[in-house]
Structures are given as structure tokens and as C-alpha cells.
């Protein structure tokens, strides 16, 4: 939150003559709120039943389908919108409305948000014990199982869907491409088109205030149930059950959501790349941006994981502190990314030139991205630390093993799979955060997603599509690596 202070100081003492509350900004705010509520409802209606079915029933292709279900969440929304726009421009039937405007945004952002309530429900359902489900099944069959599970998972699913809605408030990608007014686009235009830093700062603070207003009651009411679902418990979890009809319903549901969320937009991305492949220029761009992308995302990953690891170890024995850290983490995640980025920009302007190495460098981008996605790493690390047996630490205490030796020999090696998964997740998510990177990147240093975002308006479609495909493939590779790592480690550790 430190970078926000200079931003606040600038907002009250700034020189902008424009009013923050213009008609356009008001309309954008209303539009954004409607979009956020639509996304939350849409994702809840699809994510809750699907998450429940996926946790309770066995179905063909379980592991890959669950893996690909997470993919839309890890991609910037503009990538999916480009895919849909390409389809609309070439193979779309004239009698069917093409995705654009508010409805297009709702459709794409809604599908992109489905993984949050889906995995929230899935994680909550995994906290039900196998015997609770067996008892419900013996008492009244699948109907009772589903009814009881919905009651148990509903609070978590609602909270996850609301969080998904709030996150869309700060995403300028989809509204920009589909031509929909949104507050995130307004902030971006104030900074990049009007060059009015003070106005952008004021708009950003209004949005941040709104986000806090929305998320605060959610934290107060629902945090304990969210914490129970997110953090591991040592119970005998539900074993997926084979059911002739429901297993197929689950599989078909997941295939439909994955097709609409990923496969069809990817086909849309492929079309111009096939018609007019510009692999030479695409690989040139890739070579120029790959080092910077790796530095930004890798630095963000390391920052987030180190902080999260410390936080998880410090809070391991104190459930109240854990709850507090989780609340702060969710609050930070929900805040608009432009807030910290504009704050750092303000700091960079006021700071002496000797501090440029930290305020106007690759390092500051990596640090701010790491801090932004530190909540994701925190949840991953808290889950992992929660699954360690407390008696391992007690045994080390009785034997007088030093803290550092015990952590380096036992705890960190046992946490390695989660550390690796958390690192990869933060890397992918920070690559997708174009707002922070776009605002903070030093001159001449562009990450791949920002390069795509900046060239998409005035470059050949073939080049944009080729770059998008390369990016998509890299994310898929990282996701597959993240899913295989724990298995690899488990094999090494009988």
C-alpha cells in the first residue's frame, strides 16, 4: 500500500482542471458495475453446479479437463476477445449476433470468470468427508448428496463469484476491444491519451474506494468459510463416485465451458495466423520481448513466493492471524492494479535520479507484480504449510534442531512442489496483468502480452495472431508443468 500514499497526496494537490465526476466517467462506472454483477451471476450459475459435479463424480478425461478449466483465468481477457473478433470478422453467420459491446464483454469475461466459483466450489466440496457424502447417499440417493453439498459450498461459491466480478472492474482488455465503456478504460485513457496523471489517479482512487466498499462486507461475512475452503484440513476427502448420467453431464458441461472459453477463441486466433503466417516477424518480436517477460514474471514469482512462504510459516500456528492475512490478501488482490502502478510512477517522479534503479527499472515492475499476486502465492503456501504435520516441528524442538537447519532440510524440501506451482501461477498471472506492466515498464523494455496489446490496433492480423498463439502455448506449457510437478515430487518421495 506504500506507493498509494504519494498518489493520494498528488490527487489532492494535483493540477488537473478536469473533474473526476464527468458524465462519461459516471456512465462508465455504472456500466462497469452492471458488467461486474453480470459476470458474478453468470460465473456463479455455471461454476457452482459444475464445480460440485466435478468434485463429486468420476468422469472421463478428469485430469486434463480440470486443468484446462483453469486456463481462461490465467490469460488476459484481450487475448480471448481477439479470438472472438477474428471469428466474427471471417466465419461468423450473419443471422447470429457477433460478440461485441456490453453483451460481448459479459460473455467473454463471464466465461473467463467461471474458474473462480468452479474451483472455489470444488475446494469447498473436497472439505466434506467421504463418510458425510456416503451417509447422505445412503439416506436419499444423489438428490440428497447434491442438495447437502450445495448448501455446504454455496457461501464459498458466492464469494468467489463476487470476487470474480470485482476483478473485472479493473480489467480494460475486453471492454477496449469490444467497444464497451468501462471505468478501467477511462483510467487508461486519462493516463495514456489525455496524459492527465492527476485525473487518472483520482479515477483510480474512486474505483479503489468502490472495490473496498464491495469487498469489505464480503470479507466480514464470508471470510471464515472462504478460509475453511481454501486452507487444507486433514480429513478423508470425498472420493469421486461413478454415476451413469451425472458423470456424463459433468464431462459434457466441462467440455462446453472449455470449448467456449478457450477452444473457440483459440481457433479464432489461428485463422489469421493460418491465412497470413508472419512467423519471422513474430519470432523477432518474441526474441526481443522474451528476456523482459521472463524477468518481469520470474521476479514477480520469486518476490511473491518468498513473501508468501514467510507469511505462511509465521501464521502456521495462529488461526486468527491466518484469517487476518487472508483478508488483507484478498483485499490487495481485488484492488485495481493501476492503483499501485500509478503510485510508483508518482514516487518515481518525485524521487531523486539516484533512485531510478528501483523506481524506474525492470526491478520495480517485477516487485509490484510480485506484490500484486502475493495473495495467490499466500493461499498456495498456506494450504501447503497447513498440510504439514505439526508434530514434525515438535520433534525438531525436542531434539534441539536449529530453526534454519530444520527448515532447509525438512520444511522447504517438502514444500517444493507447492513453491514451484505457486511460482508458475504467479508468473502466468503477472504476465497477464497488462495494466501494471504497461504503466511501469521502462522505455524500450516490453513484455510479450504488452507488446501484443500495443501492436494489435495497427499491425497485420497475422502478426498479432501469431504472437497470441505463441503466448497461449507458453501459458499452456507452464500450466501443464505446474500440474505435473507435484506428481513428479510425490514419485521421488514415497
Amino acid at each position, binding site marked *: 500500500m506504500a506507493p498509494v500514499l504519494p498518489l493520494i497526496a498528488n490527487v489532492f494537490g494535483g493540477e488537473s482542471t478536469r473533474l473526476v465526476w464527468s458524465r462519461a466517467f459516471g456512465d462508465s462506472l455504472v456500466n462497469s458495475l452492471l458488467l461486474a454483477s453480470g459476470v458474478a451471476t453468470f460465473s456463479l450459475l455455471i461454476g457452482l453446479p459444475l464445480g460440485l459435479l466435478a468434485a463429486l463424480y468420476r468422469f472421463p478425461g478428469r485430469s486434463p479437463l480440470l486443468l484446462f478449466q483453469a486456463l481462461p483465468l490465467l490469460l488476459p481477457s484481450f487475448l480471448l476477445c481477439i479470438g472472438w473478433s477474428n471469428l466474427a470478422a471471417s466465419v461468423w453467420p450473419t443471422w447470429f449476433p457477433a460478440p461485441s459491446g456490453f453483451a460481448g464483454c459479459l460473455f467473454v469475461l463471464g466465461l473467463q470468470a467461471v474458474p473462480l466459483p468452479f474451483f472455489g466450489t470444488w475446494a469447498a466440496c473436497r472439505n466434506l468427508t467421504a463418510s458425510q457424502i456416503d451417509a447422505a447417499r445412503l439416506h436419499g440417493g444423489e438428490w440428497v448428496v447434491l442438495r447437502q453439498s450445495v448448501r455446504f459450498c454455496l457461501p464459498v461459491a458466492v464469494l468467489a463469484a463476487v470476487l470474480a466480478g470485482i476483478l473485472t472492474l479493473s480489467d480494460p482488455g475486453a471492454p477496449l476491444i469490444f467497444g464497451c465503456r468501462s471505468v478501467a478504460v477511462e483510467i487508461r485513457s486519462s493516463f495514456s491519451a489525455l496524459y492527465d496523471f492527476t485525473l487518472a489517479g483520482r479515477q483510480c482512487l474512486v474505483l479503489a474506494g468502490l472495490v473496498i466498499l464491495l469487498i469489505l462486507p464480503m470479507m466480514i461475512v464470508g471470510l471464515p468459510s472462504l478460509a475453511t475452503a481454501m486452507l487444507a484440513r486433514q480429513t478423508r476427502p470425498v472420493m469421486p463416485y461413478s454415476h451413469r448420467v451425472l458423470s456424463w453431464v459433468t464431462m459434457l458441461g466441462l467440455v462446453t465451458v472449455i470449448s467456449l472459453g478457450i477452444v473457440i477463441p483459440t481457433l479464432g486466433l489461428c485463422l489469421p495466423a493460418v491465412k497470413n503466417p508472419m512467423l519471422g516477424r513474430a519470432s523477432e518480436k518474441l526474441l526481443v520481448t522474451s528476456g523482459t517477460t521472463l524477468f518481469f514474471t520470474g521476479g514477480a514469482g520469486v518476490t511473491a513466493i518468498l513473501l508468501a512462504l514467510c507469511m505462511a510459516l509465521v501464521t502456521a500456528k495462529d488461526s486468527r492471524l491466518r484469517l487476518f492475512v487472508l483478508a488483507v490478501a484478498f483485499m490487495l488482490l481485488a484492488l485495481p492494479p493501476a492503483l499501485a502502478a500509478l503510485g510508483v510512477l508518482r514516487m518515481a517522479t518525485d524521487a531523486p535520479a539516484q533512485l531510478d534503479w528501483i523506481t524506474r527499472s525492470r526491478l520495480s515492475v517485477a516487485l509490484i507484480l510480485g506484490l500484486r499476486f502475493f495473495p495467490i502465492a499466500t493461499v498456495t503456501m498456506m494450504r501447503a504449510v497447513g498440510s504439514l*504435520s505439526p*508434530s*514434525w516441528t*515438535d*520433534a*525438531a*524442538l*525436542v*531434539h*534441539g*534442531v*536449529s530453526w534454519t*537447519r*530444520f527448515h532447509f*532440510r*525438512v520444511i522447504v*524440501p*517438502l514444500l517444493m512442489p507447492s513453491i514451484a506451482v505457486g511460482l508458475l501461477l504467479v508468473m502466468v498471472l503477472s504476465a497477464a496483468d497488462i495494466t501494471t506492466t504497461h504503466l511501469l515498464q521502462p522505455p524500450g523494455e516490453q513484455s510479450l502480452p504488452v507488446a501484443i496489446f500495443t501492436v494489435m490496433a495497427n499491425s497485420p492480423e497475422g502478426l498479432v495472431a501469431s504472437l497470441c498463439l505463441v503466448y497461449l502455448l507458453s501459458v499452456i506449457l507452464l500450466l501443464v508443468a505446474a500440474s505435473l510437478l507435484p506428481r513428479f515430487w510425490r514419485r521421488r*518421495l*514415497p
Partner: protein
Amino acid sequence: MNRTLIRCRGLVSRIGGQLVLNGLDLEILEGESVAFLGKSGSGKSTLLWIVAGLEVPKQGEVQIAGVPATKNGRMVLPPSRRGVAMLFQDLALWPNLTVTGNLRLGLSGLRLSREALQSRIQETVKLCGIDELIHRRPGTLSGGQQQRVALARALAMQPKLLLLDEPFGGLDLLTKETIIREIGRLKSLLGFSLVLVTHDPFEVRELCQSLAVLEDGRIVDRGPFDQVTANANSLLAKAFLEQLLESKSTKRGRM
């Protein structure tokens, strides 16, 4: 006459606002084997944790061999300097280390020289009969083998007192009997004191000479095995005595 190894005075402990130990007094002599009996939640494990130094009571004092270990809600002697080892309910073997790795890390607090450390490990694995398992990880061992490794890790410290917190729960009867006899043998050989928390009369009969019965955070019966079972004050001690007699007759019948 044996000297007092552990002396607890007026221990008071609360967990989540609930009184678990309520002014408890206890003495354990050098070389003595005591079983703590009591209903669930009577404070047996908490007492064990306090003696080990893993928990600090709100009030009261713990002395180990005459040296204050915990006083007035403050830890004076850290767990590693109390000469106490513990066999945990889930054994607490570090799963990513081999058997030797577990022993080596367990001894790291003693700061032995490389040679002394090596010879201590060799001596202990031979003593506990696990010399063929030293390169294996706990996850690849059977329940009985894991018990032996946990015991070896505890005994490698050459403790004055071994605390056992219901460690035989997951074992089949035959393995349990073997392990318990093995602990008995090692106890007579090495001469450490022993405190056992259990609900099983067989474990008590095989390992302990005296009993301490806990009720509502205090010790209500304490003394040599025969004395407590003959003049039991608490219902639990009476029930336990009946169970013990029953298990003895069943065993005789089987023979």
C-alpha cells in the same frame, strides 16, 4: 533410594479458555516407568507436552533433576536441554529424509563431532535392530519398522526420560507386542525413565510399574501399580483394573 527426576508443582493450563490442568502436582523418580491414565480431555497429553517443554503452563513449576525447567508461565530450560525424548502419536518421522537422515538431524542439536555422530548413529541403529533400513525413507517402511526408527531417533539422544504419547495406535497386536517388549528391553539396558499415555491395559502392564490417574486436571490416584489398583479412588482406575484382570484371564485362557 532413587532421586526425583521430574517435579511438577501447581500446574495450571488452559486450552481455548477451558481449564485442562488445575493445580496438578507430580513427581517421577529416576528409572521409574509411569502410565498416565484418564478420560479424553483429562489433560494427559497436555501434561506430557509441558514436561517436554512443548507447551508452557499458565502457572506452576516444572523441575528436571532439580533444575527449574518452567516457572510461572515462563520457559527456563528449552526442550532440547531437558534430557527428554518423545515418541509421538504419529511418530513425527521427517518423511523426506532417510533413516540415517532422521537420526542425524535429530542429533544435530547436540553438536557432536563428525566421528562421534557417526558412531552414535551406528550404535543406536544396531541397538534398535534397524541397521538394514538406514538408507530407506519412512514412507517405504512398515508400521513396526517406523516405530523402531522413531524409537532409535529418540534413544540416540541418550535421554533421561522417554515420553510416549499413545504411539502404538496404528499397529496390529503382534507388532505392538514386539515393539513394547523391545522398549522394555532397551529401558532395562539403558536405564531411562518412561512416561506412557495410553488407554491400553496391556501396554501398561508390560511397560510400567506405577500409575497416575488424571481427572479434571488433577491426579486422583498415584502410586505403584498394585497399590493403585487395590485401593482405587477413581471410577476410571477401578474400570481399568477390571479391564486389566479381564485381559489377564483372557491371556491365560488362550495359553
